[in-house]
């Protein structure tokens, strides 16, 4: 069999809380710095310490970064999960394990290769403190992989130097552990393995960053001053990153005081209440949560929608319903986000698929919320938020100005003959608001969640109520042309068949498109970036006879929304679904589409 170069899935099986994450990230970064597109994914338990955790890395020089089934190389450091891990390796693959203790013979398959490295033994030879033995064991397997997979040791050493720049004393023992693993593998096995890596120049100016970190930077660059939040996986790291960046970037140089406020709320309801209070009072504010939090915020989201208060809500989706699979990914909150709260409500939603989009769209959420005086939801997911992704670099135009929307200042109020908070002066459904504290005698109004007239006065008149809610709909229609436009993946339509997807499904969908193309099946593709849908989305649905809606939930929520909002006949829309908590693969998509097409051909 010929060698396989730069195309593999390698999975690390570790114990949660043993410091493996840092070694595994070091591995991914080294691959990335060898110029190879890389896509690591954490498959972790809802636990602090002791349970099995996996880290799966796909390396593909062509840049296909969606999850791929079939593990080529498994690095097993956790005897708890050996049985399952051995079973997960593809036929012909490699099982690298800590041979400090022998494997149970009954577990062994004869169609894979076992490579035993006495990781713990080597670590004990070099280090005396148990915690160190534990931590350096991880570096030892990185060293062994460097030999087995033909990795650039200089690159790894440089990463170690950078990682311990603040604690240079730790550099030599890390080098020692790295060499120990490298030398052992080199002396014991024929290195490199037939499946291995070679340096390329295929990552351009891309960066390796977690979606949540990019989202946090989006809030900083987007001008958010108030963060109100309640901890929930997988959104919490946005706040951690926000606070960490804010401490560097948002300190008043003269006083050392903070140009931001981050409040840990008592629950998600309070977090949303704080955002509403802050934006009502003229600051840019946001909250971060996941599905259960969105459910709890429901009442407040309706208030913000009806009373027309800007809100930025970041929902990093996880597996639902209920507590569901808190550490697995899904796109199960599409309906919840789009129609959150009771009564007639619909909300602007943005769907990023890369960290660069997390950054850009988050900043844009603040402009949209201020412009349309309504909740705007960034709908991310665990896969995007909590995993490192190869992403285009983050960009900011220094000439960009915040769009604070329609707000009267004191001078404008002074000139004004009459002020009505909910008067549709410009006939676009968007009215002028005022911020408390602006003018001593003009512009005050009473914000309420009850029905009110154009002057913010309570009313029970059905006629006035209808006028108000119809104007809200008009505003929503206005928003269609202001939200990010969808991405089309062809210059002009070339097929009667189309695929539609959003968010992290994109990685697998684009790979699937190429796989089908190779089989002679041509489809057009559209990626939805926002709700409400604009005309391009509607046209795509009109122009294609058969559309595959690819999404990661059980109930085909995106399909329902397309049917509902664009009045597309259900018979035109076929679902390709994945909802087991793991990111969808290109193969799932290709198999699903092919199965449907062959059934169609037989009929």
């Amino acid at each position, binding site marked *: 069999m010929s060698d396989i170069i730069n195309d593999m899935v390698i999975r690390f099986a570790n114990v949660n809380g043993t410091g493996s994450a840092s070694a595994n990230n070091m591995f991914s970064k080294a691959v*990335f*710095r060898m110029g190879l597109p890389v896509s690591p994914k954490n498959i972790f338990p809802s636990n602090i310490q002791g349970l099995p955790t996996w880290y799966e890395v796909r390396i593909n020089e062509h840049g296909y970064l969606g999850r791929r089934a079939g593990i080529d190389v498994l690095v097993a450091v956790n005897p708890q999960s050996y049985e399952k891990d051995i079973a997960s390796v593809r036929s012909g693959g490699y099982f690298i394990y800590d041979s400090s203790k022998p494997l149970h013979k009954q577990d062994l398959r004869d169609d894979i290769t076992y490579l035993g490295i006495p990781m713990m033994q080597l670590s004990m030879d070099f280090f005396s403190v148990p915690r160190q033995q534990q931590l350096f064991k991880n570096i030892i397997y990185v060293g062994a992989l460097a030999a087995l997979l033909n990795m650039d040791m200089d690159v790894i050493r440089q990463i170690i130097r950078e990682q311990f720049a603040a604690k240079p004393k730790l550099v030599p023992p890390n080098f020692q552990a790295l060499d120990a693993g490298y030398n052992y593998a080199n002396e014991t096995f024929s290195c490199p393995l037939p499946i291995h890596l070679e340096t390329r120049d295929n990552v351009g*100016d891309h*960066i*390796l960053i977690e979606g949540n970190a990019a989202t946090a*930077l989006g809030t*900083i*660059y987007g*001008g958010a*001053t*108030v963060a*109100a939040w309640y901890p929930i996986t997988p959104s919490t790291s946005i706040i951690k990153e926000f606070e960490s960046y804010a401490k560097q*970037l*948002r300190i*008043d140089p003269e*006083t050392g*005081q*903070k*140009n*931001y*406020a981050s*409040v840990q*709320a*008592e629950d998600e*309801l*309070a*977090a949303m*209440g*704080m*955002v*509403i*209070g*802050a*934006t*009502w*009072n*003229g*600051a840019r*504010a946001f909250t971060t949560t996941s599905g259960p939090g969105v459910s709890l915020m429901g*009442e*407040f989201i309706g208030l913000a929608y009806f009373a027309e208060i800007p809100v930025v809500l970041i929902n990093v989706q996880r597996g639902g319903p209920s507590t569901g699979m808190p550490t697995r990914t899904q796109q199960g909150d599409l309906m919840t986000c789009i129609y959150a709260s009771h009564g007639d409500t619909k909300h602007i939603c943005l769907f990023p698929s890369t960290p660069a989009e997390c950054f850009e769209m988050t900043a844009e959420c603040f402009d949209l919320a201020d412009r349309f005086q309504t909740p705007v939801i960034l709908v991310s997911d665990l896969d995007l938020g909590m995993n490192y992704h190869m992403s285009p670099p*983050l960009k*900011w135009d*220094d000439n960009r100005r*915040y769009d604070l929307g329609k707000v009267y200042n004191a001078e404008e109020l002074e000139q004004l003959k009459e002020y009505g908070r909910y008067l549709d002066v410009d006939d676009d459904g968007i009215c002028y608001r*005022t911020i*408390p*504290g602006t*003018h*001593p*005698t003009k512009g*005050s*109004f*009473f*914000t*309420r*969640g009850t029905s009110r*007239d154009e002057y913010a*006065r*309570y009313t029970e008149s059905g006629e006035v109520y209808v006028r108000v809610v119809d104007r809200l709909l008009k505003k929503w229609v206005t928003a269609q042309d202001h939200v990010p436009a969808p991405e089309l993946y062809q210059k002009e339509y070339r097929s009667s068949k189309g695929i539609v997807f959003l968010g992290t499904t994109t990685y697998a969908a684009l790979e699937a498109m190429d796989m089908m193309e190779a089989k002679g099946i041509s489809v057009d593709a559209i990626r939805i970036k926002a709700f409400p849908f604009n005309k391009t989305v509607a046209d795509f649905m009109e122009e294609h006879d058969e559309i595959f809606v690819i999404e990661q939930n059980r109930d085909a929520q995106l399909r329902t929304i397309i049917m509902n909002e664009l009045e597309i006949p259900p018979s035109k829309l076929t679902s390709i679904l994945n909802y087991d908590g793991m990111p969808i693969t290109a193969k799932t998509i290709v198999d699903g589409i092919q199965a449907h097409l062959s059934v169609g051909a037989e009929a």
Partner: protein
Amino acid sequence: MTYIKPTFRHPGLPKNALGFAKSDYEGAISTLCAGCGHDSISGGIIQACFEMNVEPHRLAKISGIGCSSKTPTYFLRNSHGFNSVHGRMPSVTTGANMANRDLIYLGISGDGDTASIGMGQFVHAIRRNLNMVYIVMNNGCYGLTKGQDSATADLGSRTKPGKPNPFEAIDLVGMALELKATFVARSFSGDKTQLVPLIKAAMSHPGFALIDVISPCVTFNNNKGSTKSYDFVRDHIAATSVLDFVPEQEEITVEYEEGSSADVALHDGSVIALRKLAPKWDPTDRYSAFLRLQKSKMDGEILTGLIYIDPKSQELHDLMNTTKRPLNTLREDDLCPGSVKLEEINVSMR
């Protein structure tokens, strides 16, 4: 239904230092029941703001849901108001305060809004020492939904439509003391001479200021057998002190007899001048406040007045080290780190 008040004012009405008449601090005509205690509290707020020379636009009035929470429409028409959702006034006020630390935040809530649905937010606002005045218009019942008992209804108390309440009451004042609230007071809607200086002092206090105001519900809870009726409260009231609020620029003219007076100087230079009525009670000593409150309970009294104040209170912004500039005034130059910095971040991610 919207009632419009005539805006004509007699030119000879007395004005405050800002040139506003007291009527400039009024709001729309109340739609509450005639004789409702809440209207008297609204009157107290109007009086306090007029006398304190509050610029109406420098105060934000925020409420939850219920009869109490309707009242912000009935005072301070030139102030922004926010009638939010049930039990969530504290979080909305927290956010508003984070956005602009320079305004006065007047939170209006009721006993249902605070002691039941909003208990979580109430205690956490105290815990953070949010700089706000928190007035509970406490009538022991749910008026808008026709008189169900609330969580502050006393054991055995009876509303007009109801049976004797079988549950112990939640005492918001005792709870606030336990949670180390930095300003704790109770008053009675029928005692304006006490309520007005309390509101003024609360507005000057840097931190969380609770005024639990017993405010009889004339329709559902002013009957015989109720412990929140006008008659019952008048018969059982006991005040910690007679107090006067002296703003910073004024001289103290109130003179109490020696030994019974206690002046509490506030952060902004103003003074609360007290004539103590309760023995062994020191308003700046939480322990003595606790003991006094417990004794009143045992004696069947309703203890009113200033119960505790921490003159060294540090409000949330101080604890968080937020900039003195209101966050809602910061713009791109203060907030956006720019493209050069972003490129540095990109480089660190390669």
